[in-house]
């Protein structure tokens, strides 16, 4: 699971063809969903698979493949300075967090006996966090409208 998740993330960023990168991203998201299963969160895992792999990854794949031309693939290779800076920054952040985790008592925590059920999640969403749910619905609606408007404006400009 760990290998799939981290390896998929690396493939997503480093694959030569951007289509393979999208597939690597889907693999990484699938690995995260498997980790959710391991964490006794099957509902979140199912949601992750449905939304991320079912919608986002497929959306990215379709966008890449529908509009694919040579210049999508054209990528300016980062200069060696930028690349080294990126690797150093990423490694530094990861190392610091891993060292902090290793010196903390995080390994001693045990899994809860009573795990949350669908009922508990549904209860939370529909009572205490209902305003969040409604605002989220508004955000989703406005983002769909925004995406459609962006492509429509473009089409009108072409007609003129």
């Amino acid at each position, binding site marked *: 699971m760990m290998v799939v998740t981290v390896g998929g993330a690396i493939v997503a*960023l480093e694959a030569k063809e951007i289509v393979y990168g999208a597939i690597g991203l889907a693999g990484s998201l699938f690995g995260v969903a498997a980790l959710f299963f391991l964490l006794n*969160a099957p509902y979140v895992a199912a949601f992750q698979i449905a939304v991320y792999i079912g919608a986002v990854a497929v959306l990215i794949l379709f966008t890449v493949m529908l509009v694919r031309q040579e*210049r999508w693939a054209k990528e300016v290779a980062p200069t060696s300075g930028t*690349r080294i*800076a990126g690797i150093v920054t*990423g490694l530094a952040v990861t190392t610091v967090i891993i060292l902090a*985790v*290793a010196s903390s008592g995080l390994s001693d925590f045990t899994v809860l006996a009573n795990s*949350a059920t669908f009922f508990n999640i549904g209860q939370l969403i529909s009572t205490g966090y209902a305003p969040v749910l409604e605002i989220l619905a508004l955000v989703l609606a406005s983002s769909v409208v925004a995406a459609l408007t962006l492509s429509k404006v*473009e089409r009108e400009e072409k007609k003129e």
Partner: protein
Amino acid sequence: MNSLADFVVVSAMLLGIGIYGLVTKRNALRLLFAVEILINAANLNFVAFEQYAPFAPASTVVSNAVGQTFVLFSIALAAAEAAVILAIIVVAYRLHQDVDVSELNTMEG
């Protein structure tokens, strides 16, 4: 793979990879990939920590549902964000014939 530290380490690796991608890549799609990886690292931490060290308000009986609820909201937000970014990328590509973010400087003052 059964202690909290393992999940946090995976999350830290994803975070590092995402930061590396944000720093080095110039292609807008790769930047979107990096952002998705970062969001997943955060989500993984949410679920892992609430499973092992739950947030426990006095009012709720089973307290470890809160983190999962947050992650559900976060995934939905990430989906909306990805849809808008993809639309912007497609429009930018049609206007500029390019998805290199250092070339997209039309809005510079």
